[in-house]
């Protein structure tokens, strides 16, 4: 179960941080795609070591995230617009470095035939199941990130600043909180997590698809909101987001197990998002 939602869960974890500071990051889906392609190129085509490839991918995510954060905090562009621009830009970048093609084991030879090269071992390592197949590495990474993030939000002073900035930006500034820095940090972490999700996506698919992650950002936002984190910022948390991730995940699973068609499934999901948000509001009103 965790395995299927891990990629979304990691995206949603990063999204939670941004939304807590009353921002939004629409670029996560594109950054995921970019990271998936980049990782595949580095490991499959260029035969780079796994560590170096991962480091480069994460750094790319971090740079793009920090760029979004700077646009939002320093240049005062609305988060929605800034990250919308980043979403388009990152998708373009992914298509550019991949030449618009999926990066996989199959390589086209000069005479038009295809040959296959072996997948690097890192793919197998990250995609394996451990503990007698009880738990996948992908899930472990998701759970680790979520727990670490939750602890950070509660016990670290920067974690508290996220909530403070989202709750009352002016008050935070007056109290000496580095508001701009915190905002940039939130987008930066979100970018890194999107890159992590991209690597895992590539590993699970065994290839790097430049179109991967399209509209994933919307699912991630839905998961955050269903969990109960306020889009206005300042209220919510990572554990709540995990709840939101599992809600949507189980919903999808139950519906597909019962052979409900995709069209019906989407309509039901939409309705359930509305219901969940209404329930959340009722809880916060009382």
């Amino acid at each position, binding site marked *: 179960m965790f395995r299927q939602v891990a990629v979304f869960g990691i995206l949603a974890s990063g999204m939670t941080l941004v939304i807590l500071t009353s921002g939004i990051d629409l670029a996560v889906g594109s950054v995921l795609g970019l990271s998936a392609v980049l990782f595949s190129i580095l490991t499959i085509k260029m035969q780079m070591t796994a560590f170096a490839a991962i480091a480069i991918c994460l750094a790319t995510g971090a740079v793009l995230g920090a760029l979004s954060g700077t646009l939002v905090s320093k240049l005062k562009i609305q988060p929605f617009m800034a990250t919308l621009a980043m979403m388009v830009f990152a998708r373009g970048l992914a298509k550019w470095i991949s030449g618009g093609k999926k990066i996989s084991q199959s390589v086209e030879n000069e005479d038009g035939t295809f040959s296959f090269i072996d997948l690097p071992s890192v793919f197998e390592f990250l995609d394996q199941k451990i503990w007698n197949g009880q738990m996948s590495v992908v899930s472990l990474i998701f759970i680790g990130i979520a727990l670490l993030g939750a602890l950070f939000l509660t016990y*670290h002073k920067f974690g508290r600043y996220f909530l403070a900035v989202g709750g009352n930006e002016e*008050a935070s500034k007056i109290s000496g909180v580095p508001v701009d820095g915190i905002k940039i940090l939130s987008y930066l972490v979100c970018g890194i997590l999107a890159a992590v999700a991209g690597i895992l996506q590539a590993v699970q698919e065994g290839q790097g698809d430049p179109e991967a992650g399209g509209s994933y950002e919307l699912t991630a936002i839905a998961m955050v909101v269903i969990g109960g984190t306020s889009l206005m910022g*300042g209220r919510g948390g990572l554990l709540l987001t995990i709840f939101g991730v599992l809600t949507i995940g189980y919903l999808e699973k139950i519906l597909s197990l019962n052979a409900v068609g995709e069209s019906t499934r989407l309509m039901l999901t939409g309705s359930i998002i509305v219901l969940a948000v209404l329930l959340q509001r009722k809880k916060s009103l009382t």
Partner: protein
Amino acid sequence: MLAGENGAGKSTLVKCIAGIVRPSSGQIEGNVRIAMVHQELSLVDELTVLDNLFLGKEQSFLGIVQKGLHLKMANELLLEMDYQVDLGAIVKTLSLPEKNMVEIIKALLQRPDLLILDEPTSSLSPRLTKILFAQIKKLKVAGCGIFYISHKMDELKEIADTITILRDGQLVLTEGFHKISMDQIIKAMVGRDIEDFYPSKEIGPDDLTQLKLKDFSVPYVGSEFGRDYFVYPTDLEIKKGSVLGFVGLEGAGHSEFLKHLYTHKKFWGDKRIAFMPNDRKGLGLILNSSIEKNLTLPLITESSSWKFLRLNHLKNRARDISFDVKLKYCNLNDEVSTLSGGNQQKIVLAKWLMMNPDIILMDEPTRGVDIGAKAEIYTLIRNFVAQGKSVVLYSTELIELMGLCDRLMVFHKGRITGEFTDITVNESLQEKIMQKALGVADESESNQKHWDGESSFAGSSGVDLGDLSGVYI
């Protein structure tokens, strides 16, 4: 001690000192620890009291917040101040006075060398003000400099050593406090004598009845006040050409009276009634919209819905009315949020004047408005009723009510306990009115205690004995 009208530049000056606003020229010398209590509350509603107290100043080890140390430091200070607050409570669940106190404690926790207080007592009860002043006196002895901004003259008397007055961004005077009289202070603040602060009370063209309320009552669901009605059934007559004032402690029923009258058209008869709420920013104005659009909003809603708007006509009406109310503005297209509190309030008033109602109900029409604008609003009110109209108003400042109203009704626990006519500003009348408002005629000391309890029970703020007796000009 720093004094001056709204918009004189007090808050901006201290923000420069605290390093929040950068001065456009000049330098600030010295190297001291400065803490500041802000006028607008700077608390994060969703965090706990403890987290707010240490926001931006966390004691941490490798970034891990040391909650135990926070608790210890906060408790020490609370003990020293003899004040209690639930440190674990989420700030948004606190009442306004409690938030105000938290804000003050937050500044004190930094153990500053220079403490800046920007109207810290605006919502504190007398008991809390006493705690604050005791702490200020202790700090003074310990060698801490205090920079105190206030509107309230009686506060100055208690704690100020020197007074500095600003007007329109200019330094008017700095003087030892005991060397200067109250009249001089007021004159320096306003820049003119304000002997005729309250306009003369000409009774309107006639003494006829504007609106008669029979058996008017406001039912109350709940048990907080231990009664079934906010306002028990009562008869009331609103006279033409007169200002009727309501006096009462919080929860006495006066403001519910106004709201109920406005929201239930069946009581209106054939009269047109307008209501000026006390929450100017929340209910009175569209802050980020232009002056003109705010002024003409009632006109637009009045005009029939299938017509296009006559923009020129609207603009002229807006210009005329702003002239009538002496609104200070650059351009009618400016955002309302750029205006001072006094000018904003004039827009709220002008808006309703434009609808030409018979009665305007006002809930604290001069809240957060400086002295000059107050006097102008009083004149507008008197001019309005001189046309045979009526105003019913409630204010926390008894002196203001006495200066402005022709008739006062005193509310106590949902009943009208006194009615006064032929009102002039004098102390003996003030005392009589207060006794009625408290519901008893002796032992004001024990009543105050009783009232304090009720106030916190109702979870409300604002009006209490201190405000009623507060001599504000």
